[in-house]
């Protein structure tokens, strides 16, 4: 299992996380800052979450192994 931590302060609203893993991430309408839809996604979504964390251009997504 993984647990996702996001940092709104670092987020730059690129939306790469939503493109990589739309079940787990969304963006606020007004400023595009990340919204976490599920903090502990099922195993099937873990590869897409890792991709999102890697592509994030602002180091705003941290994946914790639990």
């Amino acid at each position, binding site marked *: 299992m993984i647990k996702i931590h996001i940092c709104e302060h670092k987020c*730059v*609203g*690129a939306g790469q996380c939503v493109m990589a893993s739309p079940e787990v991430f969304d*963006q606020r309408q007004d400023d595009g800052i990340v919204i976490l839809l599920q903090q502990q996604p099922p195993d099937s979504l873990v590869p897409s979450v890792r991709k999102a964390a*890697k*592509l994030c*251009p*602002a180091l705003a997504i941290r994946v914790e192994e639990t």
Partner: protein
Amino acid sequence: MNRIVVVGASLAGLTAAETLREEGFDGELILINGETHIGYDRPPLSKKILSGAMNATEVTLKPAEFFTANCINHRIGMRATALDLTARSIALATGEILAFDGLLIATGLRPRPLLRQPVLRGLHMLRTLDDAAALRADMLDTPAIVIVGAGFLGLEVAATARQMGLDVTLVDPMELPMAKQVGRELAAAVLHKHRQQGVEVRCGSSVRSFEESKGQVTGVSLEDGAQLPTKLVVVAIGSLTNTEWLQASGLPLDNGVVCDSFCRAAPGVYAAGDVANWLHPRLGVQMRFEHRMHATEQAMAAARNMLGAGLAFDPLPYFWTDFYDTRIQVFGRIPAEYEMTVLSGHLGESGFTAAFCQGGIVEAVAGWNAARDIRKISTLVGNPAPKEAVAG
């Protein structure tokens, strides 16, 4: 493949090393880092690092454990000085020779100085964490700053300096400095925003010389005769590729390391990030991108191709720039000649999005404070142009 050497340990180099391990490379992996810090994220340097809203720890790309956990020999503070393609080895600054089976070049850029630019206290360029710390120290100590160059970096420094309460003068030889990057309409809106915020914008002006007293800059003289007294100057007129160490190697060098569509410069030799001038597979032209997302994606592609993936690198380019309360985001590449179709909102206001089309095809979409919308319309890039504007 027994040993892969990655030269350059900033975003592209680190991403390449990580990808090699993720893709199953279990041989020796050596990462040559010319800086004395673990690789860090550069976009915040002109924004939150400069303003003090973020510290160096927050922008460090990987914790120290990353290198041991991934069995990466991280040679920090070490420069590569030469490549021998025949012997398949590189030389390090210490004289040490490192043989390799695979080489990934990610040596990036350094700031381009003006012609005959003197070395003076108070005269800065910005590329590294140390540069940002030195510039910030002077900004806290000086009421005014002159910024030479109104590209991404110069404009972001201008906005940060204004928000820190400095008087800002921006000098650029071009009338619309950002036209090539964001199109003429948005470039004009960007300058308007800076003027609204109190920046003195002097476009169409070039620097003739710097005034100094005892090694401290005291002013800037422009070609149009203007004299700008200041104790603080930033030169942000672009970059040079760090390829001098490759000069005698026979590797094709032209505006960076020349690569094919697979990011390959020679058998077993790949390049990624700011330094890589690769053949865009769809457009059929060599190009080099100096953007954050590109470095990540190209490093992943180059690493995979080094291990035999054989996938042409065909990204959807993305960049953003922040100033004051505004964020411009662009997917794709705005062509020199384009037709702009407004998709939503009004130019220079939040919620504005537009498509930039050439030959009936959308080549890029841009947004002004429209992060969620721009992501959704990024799928238009490469597709037929929309018939007409959506009413804003």
